[in-house]
């Protein structure tokens, strides 16, 4: 038996029929084809599946799709604007914070959630906010630097509101 849902993903309303035991991660990747959200450990350890759910960073592997009725979800596909990449994405590229890229979508969403709440984080606050996102390539220093860099841009109006995203409720 499937469950009918209405979810707003990256600003667009979607009507989905999901199996009760499918996660939000399953629905994003398999139903909506949004494969930017990565499937890593499946149990909350790696953060590769991080998305924003009603504005908060969560592990989409530990959320049932059925739990997201009426919710607003932002994935990495919703972060860039029509005019180009988000300042946080630019900073990741500039700093060389992307190697294989598997952790990057999750890192960007965790960082975005941080900068919305705390536009001027310290180095320690960035590390704390990203402690649920594992990276096997970079050694983290460049990722932390990229987020600190972007925190200057985070005071620009509209920073925390990626393209297509409605104002948070």
């Amino acid at each position, binding site marked *: *038996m499937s*469950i009918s849902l209405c979810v707003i993903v990256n600003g667009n309303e979607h009507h989905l029929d999901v*199996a*009760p*035991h*499918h*996660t939000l*991660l*399953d629905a994003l990747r*398999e139903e909506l084809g949004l494969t930017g959200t990565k*499937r890593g450990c*499946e*149990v*909350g*350890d790696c*953060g590769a599946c*991080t998305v924003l*759910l009603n504005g*908060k*960073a*969560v*592990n989409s592997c*530990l*959320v*049932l799709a*059925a*739990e997201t009725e009426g919710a607003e979800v932002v994935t990495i596909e919703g972060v860039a604007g029509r005019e180009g990449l988000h300042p946080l994405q630019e900073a990741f590229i500039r700093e060389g914070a992307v190697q294989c890229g598997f952790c990057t979508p999750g890192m960007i969403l*965790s960082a975005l*959630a*941080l900068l919305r709440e705390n536009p001027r984080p310290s180095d320690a606050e960035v590390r*704390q*906010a990203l*402690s*649920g*996102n594992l990276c096997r390539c970079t050694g983290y220093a460049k990722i932390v630097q990229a987020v600190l860099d972007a925190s200057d841009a985070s005071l620009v109006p509209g920073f925390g509101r990626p393209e297509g995203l409605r104002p948070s409720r």
Partner: protein
Amino acid sequence: MLSKLREFQYLRPRSLDEAEELIQQFGPDARILAGGTDLLVRMKERGLRARVVVDLKAIPGLAGIHAEPDGSLRIGALTTLGDIERSSHIRAHFPLLWQGASCVGSVQVRNRATVGGNLCNASPAADTAPPLLALGGEAILRGERGERRLLLEKFFTGPGRTAMGQEILVGISIPPNGAGSSLYLKHSPRRAMDIAIVSVAVRLDVDSQTGVCGKASIVLGAVAPVPLRARAAEQTLEGQRLTAQRLEDAARAAQEAAQPIGDLRGTAAYRREMVWVLTRRALVEASGAGEGSTFFQG
């Protein structure tokens, strides 16, 4: 590749009555879902079976932090650890709980994990348990025959086991914290994202005029089948002036109370040693005998 979860029926009751009915109806086939950060992991990794998953999140009134006029606090069972961490009231007036909640997992985990789930999961290493026990917290339980209250000290009966029957935890009630000073210390290999090898919550009421300790609470995590109140250690301090020797004696008494097991996180002997180290450090800091009393997680 799709979800590692096996099929189940997902139900979303809109009221406590409805939820309670479902739990009676399905009995052990039903699993209560709060934030899912324990339940879904156990279902994925450890083959825990659920025929029916009863999600409590559509029931109004089960999440929220309520400061009562008398200084006590009521927290809905579905309040997330993230909301506790973001509460300036809890940070200022119940710092012990703030410290426990803030050191769980990651931002992502805390945004889903609920305080009720942390307690009902009944891990001896649950990070909100020692703080809530030390604060004298009570569980508010809702069952077939209405509501009852149970001191959290009596709530845990073994690893993964609680004194709840077919009941729902609706909230936690904490008496006024007064001016006591307190500290929660967690020892884990990684600073973040790791469960405790040993943890300790201490809370001391020290008279600033006389330096005599009134009520003392010392609760240990991860070193017994349940979060453990170290009574003998508390008694070493109550009614006494807190000299370095007393604090040391209390830490030894806590160490003796611990009944740790050895596992891949640490041997029993190591855990016992760490109980002494951590309890002494927490007591020194909380009693003001240390360098200041910043939150320390080591």
